[in-house]
């Protein structure tokens, strides 16, 4: 093919995608980073501020307190997803791929359903379930004689974050399940048959044959969890508001960013400080993804059948 034709085809096929991606993704991203280097004056104009916003954010106690608190909470939020959501997702996928399971499609749909619901619906429903006034949780525990265990979990500093995280786990457990389940389906039956002939039972076959084959998918699920969790915002905003109470116990990077950028009640929004927080979020996610790519992804062996 002549060089000219090749270039024209290149522009024709890639151009629109590159253009749209640049306009709606790259440009806003760069503009956010750019904004973070300015500071807003009282008359509404913007002045170049260098790394000033970042210095304030990381070292001025008025800002660094909420920042580190949000980052810490965000890590807890992420760890709960990693330790609860993904193992349960794996377990569900393993159960779903059992050969003699009835109602497979029904289970799969039911478990995946919450993922497709609006976060506002989820937040509202769970707030009602856990409500100390009208919730079923209290009655349910009481039925088993465990009523004394009930507490207004969402309103107590020590349990609010864990409760919100677990609600998020409940909502999104379908994603690791469906991804891992798909990977399990791709494993040829011959391998399992061979393992069975060699004397392995279902559980052993899962651990020694299937699990090593789905590590790449589990890695993918982990990094997706990480990125989603550090971008999370909506569930906490829906259930606890922009001040993420009690006493900022549920404040994560997303809510801190929202409050700073858009303001809250009498707090006027500060776009440049908000952009600085958004840039920090980008950096954290970038570091996490890079670490994954260099330390984990390259060591994962892929098998082709």
């Amino acid at each position, binding site marked *: 093919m002549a060089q000219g034709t090749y270039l024209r085809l290149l522009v024709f096929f890639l151009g629109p995608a590159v253009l749209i991606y640049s306009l709606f993704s790259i440009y806003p991203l760069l503009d956010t980073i750019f904004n973070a280097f300015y500071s807003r004056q009282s*008359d*509404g104009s913007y002045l170049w501020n260098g790394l000033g916003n970042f210095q304030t954010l990381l070292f001025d106690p*008025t*800002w660094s307190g909420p920042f580190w608190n949000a980052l810490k909470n965000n890590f807890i939020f992420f760890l709960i997803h990693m330790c609860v959501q993904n193992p349960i997702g794996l377990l569900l996928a393993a159960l779903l791929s059992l050969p003699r399971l009835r109602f497979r499609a029904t289970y799969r749909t039911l478990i995946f359903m919450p993922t497709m619901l609006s976060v506002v619906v989820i937040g509202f429903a769970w*707030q009602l379930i*856990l*409500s*100390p*006034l*009208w919730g079923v949780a209290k009655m349910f525990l009481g039925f088993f004689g465990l009523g004394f265990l009930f*507490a*207004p*979990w*969402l*309103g*107590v*500093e020590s349990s609010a974050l864990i409760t919100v995280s677990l609600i998020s786990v409940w909502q999104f457990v379908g994603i690791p399940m469906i991804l891992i389940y798909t990977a399990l389906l791709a494993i040829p039956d011959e391998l399992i048959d061979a393992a069975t002939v060699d004397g392995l039972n279902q559980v052993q076959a899962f651990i020694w044959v299937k699990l090593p084959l789905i590590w790449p998918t589990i890695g993918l699920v982990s990094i997706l969890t990480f990125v989603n969790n550090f971008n999370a915002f909506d569930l906490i905003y829906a259930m*606890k*508001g922009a*001040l993420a*109470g*009690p*006493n*900022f116990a549920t404040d994560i990077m997303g809510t801190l960013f929202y*409050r700073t950028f858009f303001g*809250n*009640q*009498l*707090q*006027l929004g500060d776009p440049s400080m908000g952009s600085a927080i958004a840039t920090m979020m980008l950096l954290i996610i970038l570091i996490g993804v890079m670490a994954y790519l260099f330390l984990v992804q390259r060591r994962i062996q892929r098998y082709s059948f």
Partner: protein
Amino acid sequence: MLTKGLKTLLLGAAAAFALSGAAQAGTLTIESWRNDDAQIWKDKIIPAFEKAHPDIKVEFTPTAPKEYNAALNAKLEGGTAGDIITCRPFDASLELYNKGYLVSLNELSTMGNFSDVAKSAWTTDDGKTTFCVPMASVIHGFIYNKDVFKELGLEEPKTEDEFFAVLEKIKSNGTYVPLVLGTNDQWEAATMGFQNIGPNYWKGEEGRKALIDGTGKLTDPAYVSTFATLAKWAPYMGDGFKAQTYPDSQNLFGLGKGAIYAAGSWDISTFRAQKVNMGAFKPPLPAGASECYISDHTDIGIGMNAKTKNPADAKVFLEWIGSEEFANILGNELPGFFPLSNASVTLNDDVAQTFVNWRKECKSTIRNSYQILSRGTPNLENEMWNVSAQVINGTLTPDAAAKQLQDGLAKWYAPQQK
């Protein structure tokens, strides 16, 4: 045929153009966030104005409350905003005036119908220029269920001791939640709690102004005692109030399961819809206090777009907003939002009338975090939400709460750094 068709088309277009031009000249457009009240504006308020001023047409074009500030700013910058601007209280509107989007309204004759407290929300820091006509306020107090009070033989408490005695009786009866308030949403604790009973402690305007000029501190006994009283509410607030949201509170009282509701006057219409047989009493007096103070918070004002094509008509409209006629319509059509003018207004809703009567018995003040004091970081209003909820939850002592507020304010507010 073709030319005839073309002619008709052109004529039509010209007529349409002329019509739209005509409509433009005599029409005033109102920007507002009160889309809940759109029907009342269209059916009651605007017809009343147009009856008196048949040459001026008025159109009410509200935006959703959450988007209002952003949308209004964009429209003002782009020069497409309406002629009349509904004003948020304090800094949001002050910023618009400072940027030249709103004009001084000092020369309006009906401006004299408003007190300084009423005007404070739309007046420059030096007190010289007022840029929006005060329109409506909301008052805090307590709404109670008359049926429950009758059943248990209770009377409206006047002092704080009586208040807690009443709560104790309701609690020992065990059928009803004595005091309906939740801390999940935090603002309830600050607004319906701290700002509700606080003015009696810090003596309303006196204390509020002392904070602004730096002679008073949030660690003063008045503020610590307010928090101490709030902390005593917790045992009466019903199971799991820590996870109780604002809609939960409204439903709890609306369904007749609660006895006393820490209220904002805007809740009246909600409970009317739920047919609660209700009454109201003002924040009970603390021991030793003789004068009463209420939070009569300026919430809605109305001003003029500096770039309006129709300043003369706009001023006629604003004059009317300051009149007694408007005050009467507003007060009766929107129970719980009270006209701010000094005109004596008779309200048909007896509970709303009870609230508004307190203005004669007590001194009015506004929420102390609204003027000037929430301009810095940490934001005083946010801090108040946080610590008020914590004090009621029992995770922060009254002293520590007051100290946190004062430390936060002193971080950026010069008069408090002395």
